[in-house]
C-alpha cells in the first residue's frame, strides 16, 4: 500500500493532481489536436452539410404545404362565395315567381270580381225592374180597389158617384 502511494505521488506530481502532471501534456495535446481535426473534417465534409440539407428540405416541404393549404383554402372560399351567390339568386328567383303568381292571381281575381259585379248588377237591375213592375201592379190594384171602394162609399153615402171625379181624386191622393 505504501508502495502504491509513493508510486502514485510520483506519477501524479505536484499536489497529487494528475491534471498538473506536465509529462503527460504533450500526449494529451497531440491526441486532442488529432481528434479535433478528425471531428472537424467529419462534420464539415459529411454531417453538417447533410443535416443542413435535410433541414432546408423540410423547411421547403413545409413552405410548399402551407402554400398548397393556402390555395385550397382560397378555393374553398371561392366555392362558398359561389354557393352564397347561387342561394341569393335562387331566393330572388323564388321571390319573382311568387310576385308573378300573386299578380296573376290578382288579375284573375279582378276579372272574376268584375264579372261577378256585372252579374250582380244585372240581377239587381232585373230585380229592381220586377219590383217596379210589382209596385206598379200593386199601385194599379190599389187604385182600382180605392176607386171601387170610393165609389161604394160615395154610393153608400147616397150620392151619385162621378167616375171621373173619383178617379182624379184617388190618383191625386195616391201621388200625395
Amino acid at each position, binding site marked *: *500500500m505504501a508502495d502504491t*502511494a509513493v508510486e502514485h505521488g510520483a506519477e501524479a506530481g505536484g499536489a497529487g493532481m494528475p491534471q498538473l*502532471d506536465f509529462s503527460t501534456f504533450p500526449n*494529451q495535446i497531440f*491526441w486532442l489536436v488529432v481528434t479535433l481535426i478528425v471531428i472537424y473534417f467529419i462534420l464539415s465534409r459529411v*454531417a*453538417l452539410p447533410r443535416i443542413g440539407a435535410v433541414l432546408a428540405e*423540410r423547411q421547403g*416541404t413545409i413552405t410548399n404545404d402551407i402554400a398548397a393549404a393556402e390555395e385550397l383554402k382560397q378555393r374553398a372560399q371561392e366555392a362558398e362565395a359561389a354557393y352564397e351567390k347561387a342561394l341569393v339568386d335562387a331566393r330572388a328567383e323564388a321571390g319573382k315567381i311568387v310576385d308573378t303568381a300573386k299578380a296573376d292571381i290578382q288579375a284573375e281575381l279582378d276579372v272574376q270580381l268584375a264579372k261577378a259585379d256585372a252579374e250582380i248588377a244585372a240581377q239587381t237591375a232585373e230585380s229592381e225592374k220586377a219590383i217596379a213592375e210589382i209596385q206598379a201592379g200593386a199601385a194599379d190594384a190599389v187604385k182600382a180597389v180605392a176607386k171601387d171602394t170610393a165609389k161604394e162609399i160615395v154610393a153608400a153615402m147616397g150620392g151619385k158617384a162621378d167616375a171621373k171625379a173619383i178617379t182624379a181624386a184617388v190618383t191625386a191622393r195616391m201621388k200625395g
Partner: protein
Amino acid sequence: MADEAHSAEGGLSFHPLDQFEVHRLFGEGPIHWYTITNVTMWMAIAVVCIVLLLVIGTRKRAVVPSRTQSVAETLYGFVYTMVEDVTGKDGIKYFPYIFTLFIFILISNFLGLLPMSFTTTSHIAVTAILAFAVFFTVTIIGFVKNGAAFLGLFWVSSAPLALRPILAIIEVISYFVRPVSHSIRLAGNLMAGHAVLKVFAGFAQVGFIIAPVAILGVVAIYALEVLVSAIQAYVFTILTCVYLKDALHPSH
C-alpha cells in the same frame, strides 16, 4: 491523505484522483507525445460516438426524422441558432468550428460519466488548448477583419473621457484572462464533480448505515453531473460565440 483514510477506517481507501491518471494502454514505459494512452482511447470513442450520432444517425436523410436524426438535428439547430443570435449573420461561416468544439466537449463530458471511464475534458491540458485556440483564433480574426480598429474593443467610447484609460486597462486584463477562465471553468467543474462522485463511492464501502446515504449521494451528484456536463459544453460554446462577436464587431 489516502493513507490516513486507509489507516483510520481499516480497509477503506479513497483515490478520488486516480480516475484522472493518464497511462499507457499497451506495455510499460514513459509516455511520449505519440504514445497510445487512455486519452487516445477515450477521444477515439468520442469520435466514434459523434460519427454514430451525426453521420450514421442521419444517413437516411429523412424528412420525417428518426430519433437519432432528430437528436442530431436538435443539436445542429441549437448551435446554429446560438451562433446566429450571438455573433450575427457574418458569424455563420465559423459555425463548423464552433460546432466541432461543442460536440467534442458535450460527448466527452457525457462519456466521462460512464463508470470506469476517463474524462478527457477534466484535464487542464485539453481545455487550455481548446480555450487558447479560441483566444488566438478570435484575436487574429479581430485584427484581420477590423485592423487597428479592433483595439477599440478596449477603448470604451461611451464612458467619460477621464475614465477611459482606467477602463482600457481593465478591459485588456479581462481580455487576457479570458482563456484562463474559459479553460479552468470547464476542467474544474468536471474534475470537482467526478472527484466528489468518487469520494461518495468510497464512503459506500463503509457499512450499512453510511452506505445507503452515500449511494443516494452518488445518485444525486450523478444527476447534477449530467446537468453540469451539458451546461459546461453550452457555456464554453456560448462564450466562444461572445468572443467571436467581439472580434467581428469590436465597437461597444
